[in-house]
């Protein structure tokens, strides 16, 4: 079981992430003291606790500003909670794909090579690993091209492959298909399904209801920094427990 527990108030806002990261460099205790000053109006999480199944694809859903990305970044260890703790059930190796695709100003091949080198994966099979990855993702012909000359979909795909090449057992993706055409979306979704089937835990952030219907095993619906519903895909779409989730699925504006 993959568990995320926070026992006391956590104050986070996606609008102040940079500021928070700076504060966090000193002490998260100071955050609580700073609460009334800078974050009073935008406290996001208060005593957030949840557990995520260690298998399959789990999906954070919810409207803009609900706290999905912050949740994902907390799990990815890119943000530290001011209190509480995140527990993982085994030696976790995390692959993270951010909402905005960030590729190095290097060739497609070198982008993958970089991830391996930084993750201390050195062996004589590196070249083969990269070439295989490029073949699987249909990017082999762009091997020597600059990663930035790829189309948006291919860039997104490369970012996912870069996260996967380090062989993570937990893959976190923040809206990986937000700017993609249906074909590219299908390619990426099938890759996610495949890695999930070989035991990689996948956690996705999305507000794409159709994607959730297609791929999710479990749905965590977030609203105003609270997990208002956590259930199987089937239950969530057939009979959502909360009025908020029901309204969201109907396309109504949430308060």
């Amino acid at each position, binding site marked *: 079981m993959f568990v995320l527990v926070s026992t006391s108030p956590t104050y986070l806002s996606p609008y102040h992430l940079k500021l928070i990261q700076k504060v966090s*460099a000193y002490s998260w205790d100071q955050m609580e003291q700073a609460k009334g000053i800078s974050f009073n109006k935008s406290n996001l999480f208060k005593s957030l606790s949840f557990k995520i199944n260690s298998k399959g694809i789990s999906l954070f859903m919810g409207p803009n500003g609900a706290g999905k990305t912050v949740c994902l970044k907390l799990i990815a260890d*890119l943000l530290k909670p001011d209190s509480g703790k995140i527990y993982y059930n085994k030696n976790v190796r995390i692959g*993270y794909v951010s909402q905005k695709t960030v590729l190095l100003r290097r060739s497609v091949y070198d982008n993958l090579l970089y991830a391996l080198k930084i*993750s201390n994966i050195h062996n004589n099979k590196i070249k083969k690993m990269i070439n295989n990855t490029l073949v699987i993702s249909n990017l082999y012909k762009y091997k020597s091209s600059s990663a930035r*000359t790829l189309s948006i979909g291919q860039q997104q795909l490369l970012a996912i492959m870069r996260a996967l090449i380090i062989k993570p057992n937990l893959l976190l993706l923040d809206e990986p298909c937000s700017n993609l055409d249906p074909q590219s979306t299908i390619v990426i979704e099938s890759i996610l399904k495949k890695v999930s089937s070989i035991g990689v835990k996948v956690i996705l952030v999305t507000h794409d209801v159709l994607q959730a219907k297609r791929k999710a095993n479990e749905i965590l619906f977030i609203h105003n920094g609270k997990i208002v519903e956590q259930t199987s895909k089937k239950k969530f779409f057939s009979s959502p427990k909360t009025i908020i989730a029901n309204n969201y699925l109907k396309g109504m504006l949430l308060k």
Partner: protein
Amino acid sequence: MIDYLTIILESFRLILKFDNELFEIITLSLRISLTALFISIFISIPSAALFSVTNFFGKNFFILISNSLMGLPPVLVGLVLYIIFSSSGPLGYLEILYTPTIMIIAQVILIFPIVFSLSYQVLSEMLDEYDELLKSLKANISQKIITITWDARYSLLTCILAGLGRAMSEVGAIIIVGGNIAHLTRVMTTSIALETSKGNLELAISLGIILILISIFLNSLVYSLKVIAKKYSYD
């Protein structure tokens, strides 16, 4: 009245003649400015990268000072160095006043803030872009420094070029500490100042033209590199 045409023709004649003295002046100029530039690059780019990836008390103050020193008056640097290194000064025993060594020191002091501040700007922007990726891959500080410096290399060329421009064109500091001694510390800019004051405009103009040509050559070299990098989207 000044006969401009004769002066310009004469200056071109001097360039074409390209005698030993002219050659000596040009090579000394390049030797001093390029040495100063390389020393500055060696100190300022790694420290700018370190500043970009770390946070510490007083960092912003240091950046502010460096930014302010970009416009440091060369004569002031020359004067301070003169006081320190003159025979009665605290470091006078080193006896480097009126030698190319002190001219290099003066230029390093003038170039460092320019290359440092501009590089810091470039590298900070690069880190902003890469930060989340580097954090998610658990890159350590040295890996971060190497990554952003390597990937910003073409943009850093512009910072280096700005430093070289300052070194090549500067006259105030090196004329004080170098003394413009023939065959020893005479460089292009100090010669132009001297020849102009002597009324020897032909030689001054010919040196000026050569200075501009060198500057155009170096700029074109860097510009071509940037164009190539842009073409392959590495910039």
